[in-house]
């Protein structure tokens, strides 16, 4: 016998042994019941049970009576999990914010552009109010004219001071804040003047 044939022979014997074992396993399994219409019967039974359950309130109650226990079990798991998630989010946010440290005194590009836009809006509003205020001031009594003129001159001086400071320090947040405050003050004063009776 050649080596190849011997190998083939050995392999064949191993295969037969494997098949015999497999068959023995199969034989040890329970023989399934012969039931040609089994699924149909199961379906019919289920439908019958469902109809019966609907027609019996106590059955419904009985069915629900198991829910609290299930819910309770769910909540015992759900609540701590949610709390954990929430704590995690809050911590991350809080520390993430804190991570930024002292707020910057310099306005970054976008923030600076927004502030400049806001300033331009205020300047425009102030210009429009000033046009309306001029004839009103001319008609007011001297005391009130003097008061408002004083106040507006004071605010204008502050606006000039802020502009001078911004010329050499354009993105300084503090100066921008005070510039905006002065413009707001001017707008409010002009509005008051126009509302004066």
């Amino acid at each position: 016998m050649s080596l190849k044939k011997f190998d083939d022979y050995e392999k064949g014997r191993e295969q037969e042994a494997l098949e015999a074992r497999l068959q023995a396993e199969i034989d040890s399994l329970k023989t399934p019941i012969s039931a040609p219409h089994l699924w149909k019967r199961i379906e019919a039974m289920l439908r019958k049970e469902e109809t019966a359950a609907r027609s019996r309130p106590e059955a419904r109650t009985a069915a629900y009576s198991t829910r609290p226990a299930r819910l309770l079990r769910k909540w015992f798991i759900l609540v701590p999990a949610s709390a954990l998630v929430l704590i995690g989010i809050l911590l991350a946010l809080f520390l993430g914010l804190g991570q930024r440290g002292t707020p910057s005194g310099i306005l970054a590009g976008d923030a600076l552009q927004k502030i400049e836009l806001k300033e331009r809006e205020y300047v425009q509003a102030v210009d429009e109010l000033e046009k309306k205020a001029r004839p009103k001031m001319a008609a007011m009594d001297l005391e009130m004219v003097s008061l408002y003129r004083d106040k507006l001159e004071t605010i204008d001086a502050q606006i000039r001071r802020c502009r001078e400071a911004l010329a050499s320090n354009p993105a300084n947040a503090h100066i921008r804040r005070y510039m905006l405050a002065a413009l707001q003050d001017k707008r409010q004063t002009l509005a008051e003047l126009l509302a004066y009776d």
Partner: protein
Amino acid sequence: MKKKTILGLSIFAVFLLVYAQMAVSTAPNRINAAAGPTKTTQSKSLHESVPSAPGKTVRLEDMQADLTITAWDRNEIVIEGSVEVGNSNPEMLTEFLAGTKLSIEPSGDRFSVKLHTPFESRQKKGTGSLSGALRNFLRSGKFNFSFSARLDVHVPSDQSLVVNNSFGNIKLSGVNGRHDIRNDSGEVRVEGCGGTLSLRNSFAAANVVHFKGPATVDNKSGDVILEEISGGAEVRNSFKSVRFGKIGAALIIKSESADVIGSDVAGDCRIASSFKVIDVRGIQGRLEVRGESSEVTVDNVKKDVVIESSFKPVKVTNVQGGLRVISESAAVTAGDIAGEARIKSSFNEISAARVHGSVTIDGESCAVNLREIDGDAAIASSFKEVSASNIGGTLDIKSQSAKVIATDIKKATSIASSFNSIEVRRAGRNVKVEGESSSVLIEEAAGNVDVQNSFKYVILRQTSGSIRVVGDSSGVEVSQIRMLPKGSTIDIRTSFKPIIIALPKDADVAVSAKTEYGKIHSDYPVYLGGEDLRPAVEAGKGTIPVRLETSADITIKKEL
């Protein structure tokens, strides 16, 4: 819920906790906040220290920074801080920061803190640590460099401070010395300090709290808050409010168009403002208020009060001294004044009650209401009702076209008015009334009654002294005379209107009555007399002369 979902949530929670933990463990960094596309910022930490001693002066001048100056128990000045700069060129930023230095320069008993930046050297030529590019760039003036600084300064607790800053906030705490703080466009807070304070600021709030010593605050267009200043305080500001409490000595406030509100001043207090509310309470010394177009409220002042105001109400209560109000077109209310009250106003009501001294009112077109005045009361007014009751002294009313009601006047009463009624009830002494076209009613006058009026009725009841009525077309009615003492007289003359008089039945009177065109009805015997034989009465030879004259009817009754 499925187990997988719960597991997923738990893993997510753990992830977040880990992230949070990493955030905690990471030390705060110098910022390289990548800004927007056009701006980068860089910052640099600053630290300097130098030994000091009590009684020295620290100067921080020409600053543009947020300054926090705190006292500590070490004889050392330590400054920590940071400078942040922004520009589109990171290299220039680095170079700029390299040229930025903090120094504390001692000189005698002073220390000068300086923050040197390349901005100072932009005008200088020559070499330096700055590259030519940066120098040229700064000199060009066309740059968008931005700069922000913050300094935390720790100093010995007994140290004087001279600060000159702008566009930054200043906070000073626990330091005692002679402090001179100048700021512009930034909040200033001085807390728990002592010594002397001169603070000048503008366009932001200035707060001085728990200061042991005198304080002067000058804050243009900025709020001022003073709380627990053990020395005196002086404030100048405008357009923003002043609030104060617990000032240990005199207080002076000169403001403009600002609310001034406060209490508890241990000394004299002088306040000037305009167009807003002035509300001052609890002053141990003298109070002076000047409030043009200001609503003024004053309560609980231990000495005199003087108020000048206009156009807005004035209310004063609980003054241990005298009160003087000079106002214009303002309602004035005064109550519980221990001394004398003098009030002048116009076109609004003047009301004074429970004044232990005398009261003088000058109220053009003012309704006047006086109650419970212990001393004399003198009123000059017009066109509005005058009411005076429970006057312990004399009452003198000079009015015009005003209704007058006077009741319970202990001493002499003198009233002049016109075109409105005059009523006097329960006058303790003589009553004199001049009422042009005014009806006059006098009841229960204990003294003599003297009435001059025209065109309206005069009604006198329960008089106890002489009666004199000179009327012009005035009807006169006299009844229920309580008493006609010895030496008293009754002299009633009028025209065109009747006289009706009821004399006490036992009165020892000598009556003469004369009428031009009327009739005489008398309970007394009538004798014709007079040159033209007109009806007249001359009855009795009593000691009390009763003279009645009119051109209308005369009725003389004998009261039973």
